[in-house]
């Protein structure tokens, strides 16, 4: 069955970037306003799923040659690893730290270790969602 999806394809090309930008924004804004690792990751994953829907798997894979299982595994490692990091510094498990920095362009910026944790969450979400969808769709 051949579907004429020119409109979808054209829109996707632009929309994907908007979604990707949104996901990055959501990820970083999570500390003070709505967003965060889980939502950011999920939005990013849905962007990837959209790309898979419009073009075939090989094309997308050429653009993003990641093994998403590895992405998920790395995410879990980071999320648990940040928990243990505080142990190494002699604090209790999963103690988070934050510091304020004055960066040239961004002005006063807060660096928080919770960002790393959230990054782990986001990566796991992306990896798992894409892995599940890919493995179901690739099944013969």
């Amino acid at each position, binding site marked *: 069955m051949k579907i004429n999806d020119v409109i979808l394809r054209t829109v996707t090309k632009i929309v994907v970037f908007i979604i990707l930008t949104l996901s990055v924004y959501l990820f970083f804004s999570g500390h*003070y306003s*709505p967003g965060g690792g889980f*939502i950011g990751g999920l939005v990013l994953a849905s962007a990837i799923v959209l790309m898979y829907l419009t073009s075939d798997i090989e094309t997308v894979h050429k653009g993003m040659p990641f093994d998403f299982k590895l992405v998920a595994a790395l995410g879990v490692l980071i999320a648990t690893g940040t928990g243990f990091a505080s142990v190494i510094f002699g604090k209790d498990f999963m103690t*988070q730290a934050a510091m304020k920095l004055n960066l040239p362009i961004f002005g006063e910026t807060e660096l*928080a270790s919770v960002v790393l944790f959230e990054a782990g969450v986001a990566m796991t979400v992306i990896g*798992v969602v894409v892995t599940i969808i890919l493995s179901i769709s690739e099944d013969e």
Partner: protein
Amino acid sequence: MTINLAIVIPFLMAILIPILYRRFTKLHIGWLVLAVPVIIFIMLVRLIPFVAEGHTYSHTYNWIPSLDINFTTYLDGLSMIFGLLITGVGSLVILYSIFYLSAKESLQHFYCYLLLFMGAMLGVVFSDNLMVLYAFWELTSVSSFLLIAFWHHRKASRAGAQKAMLITVTGGVSMLVGFIMLHMMTGSYSVHEIIRNVSQFTDHQLFVPAMILILFGAFTKSAQFPFHIWLPDAMEAPTPVSAYLHSATMVKAGIYLVARLTPIFGGDAIWFWLVTVAGLVTLFWGSFNAVKQTDLKALLAFSTVSQLGLIMSLFGMGSVAFKLGYSDSTIIYTQATFAALFHLVNHSTFKGALFMMVGIVDHELGTRDVRRLGGLMSLMPLTFTVAVIGSLSMAGMPPFNGFLSKEMFFAAAIHMRDLDIFSISSIGILFPVVAWVASIFTFVYCMIIIFKTFFGKPYEKSEGKPIHEAPIGMLVSPIILCVFVVGIFIFPNVLGQYILKPAMASIYPGFAPAEVLTPKIHAWHGINMELLMTIGVVIVGVMLYRKLKTWKPVYRLFPYRFSFNELFRHLLEGLESGSNKVTTSYMTGSLRKYVLYIYLFFIVAVGGYFLFSGGFAYSSANDAPVEIYELMLIIVMLLAGISMLFVKSRLTATLLNGVIGFGVSIFFVIFRAPDLALTQLIVESVTTVLFLLCFSFLPEWKREDSPKSVKISNAVIAGAVGALVVVMSFAVMYYDEFDSISSYFENAYELAGGANIVNTILGDFRGFDTMLEVVVLFIAGLGVYTLIKLKARKEDTDNEN
């Protein structure tokens, strides 16, 4: 700190090994692994002088203080002995394994498991907190399982691994219950705190149950009768593993626990009888059965069972000193404990050497069957020497260390006759008798090891390759152990003063100064009862060995049907078929049924709870007025929901489901929960894609044609679930059975530095939950992947099963 490191290093290395394995393809990975136990051994040896002076080391790292679970490491004399054994024997075994296992085996797995075991075992002996100890304890079972099944293409290996796992883990769980009971009594998981306060609890009603449950764990681990059946089957493991786990270290974990807890439970009649009798029966049964074995490794397995029984019974005998209290006349009974510790070390040396010897024979000849072996003395002189030294030490002959501890064992058994507590006096004579009889059998099987393997008709190899001595690398470890066997005989008091003395102090806290408890060990103490018993053992043993053929039919008196192995098999099969029946009765494979179960359970559990707790309360006083657009939204969702029941294609149903989902997210927006709205929106989109993907694999949608009664009951259940959810959502507003938790998050900005309270909860307050959820999500993803991608490939079943 050193001790924390000692536990952590093996685990770190276990993670690194699979990575390093690919880098060092030329080098046998074992050399890298060898560094771990050697380093820890040296670290521990440096601490010996301090521990010998009576110092102890303790370091606490708070883990879950609210549950009284802390990572407390503790080093005293007793844990020192075990730490030295684990790392010392561990070094030798790894050295030996480098030559035993060819590079073709999957070495990275082997050493990864071995390091896991080493770390877990060190964790067991260095943990002061019972919960941490339990965690490490189970980890030793798991790693032992993995190591026994290392050659997992063999059916016997898998069966042996399963048996060992089932028995030791059953014991482990009962032990956990025992620990929890101890905590309920004393309010502490710390062994040393419990020991300090134990006198207040000996009359507690949980005291005896806790003791029995913990002993059950210790007995299964240390292969005490009748749980010994897993140990002979575990011999399917590679020989280095048998030498390490199943003779020198892991099986001694149970003994360690008994020794460690003697200050708590010792002095109780039940403890004395259980430990002593289990030990003596095991001692006798193991040695008696070892004689009939034809496989050298099985023979050694039974001999290990028997020796473990010996050590166990000695700890039992030593515990009477707690009942009697400390005085000059009772000091004699503490000597049983001293003998136990002494024999523990000795057993590790000679049994390790013997296992390695059998491994060499197996490696060079390809068989361990005593009926086929023979005449190896001239072909393998060094191996023969190892076998003679090891066997004679096990038989309790001078000039080897086994002689010294065996004599002390006899002495301890003889002293039991004079006791008149615990109603011992009537049967006190049995102690030395059983000890003596078991020692005779021990002597007989030691003779079998030496004479059937190395003397007699030469072994003929079918391929005609000449038999030669093992490579020197394999011989180094057993020879080092043999040096210890002889060395300890010559200088027993070095061991006594530096290693055993502090251990005595940790088993008998508050007793006399450790110097008094530590006797001078003499090889020659005049002609006394013990020596006469040893001479008797030799005379009767030689006679029995000579006449082996005439009395061996005795073993046929026990029909196989009634053996514990058969009992275990029947139990297992019954369990398997029973649980299979139960499971297949409700796991029909029909998704509709499963959903039904879930809903029924929901109705019964949640609905029942609301019904009986009387938690439902509702008043409309505080409700906000319903706006017109909210009403419209509700109507849209209702319409979508109702029409879903009547649509004829899955696609339409999914879309309608999406309408409900998006409706909910609009509600979230209206009620100012942007986080939830965002999440709901994205989840809704992704699940719709998922649904559509899955539908392409499903068969055509057929009209449901179940009978009317089923349809009605389904409708009732569905309605009930819906009603219940409505009730719940009304009730949560007024529910007051639990305190509100919102006060925890009031200072979110100060505590977590974030203005978005949802994320501070997710990432900080409940960060632990989030972390575990991430792990669960990952596991679920992997599950889906493996289910779909790695469907049982039918052509790949060249395994034995």
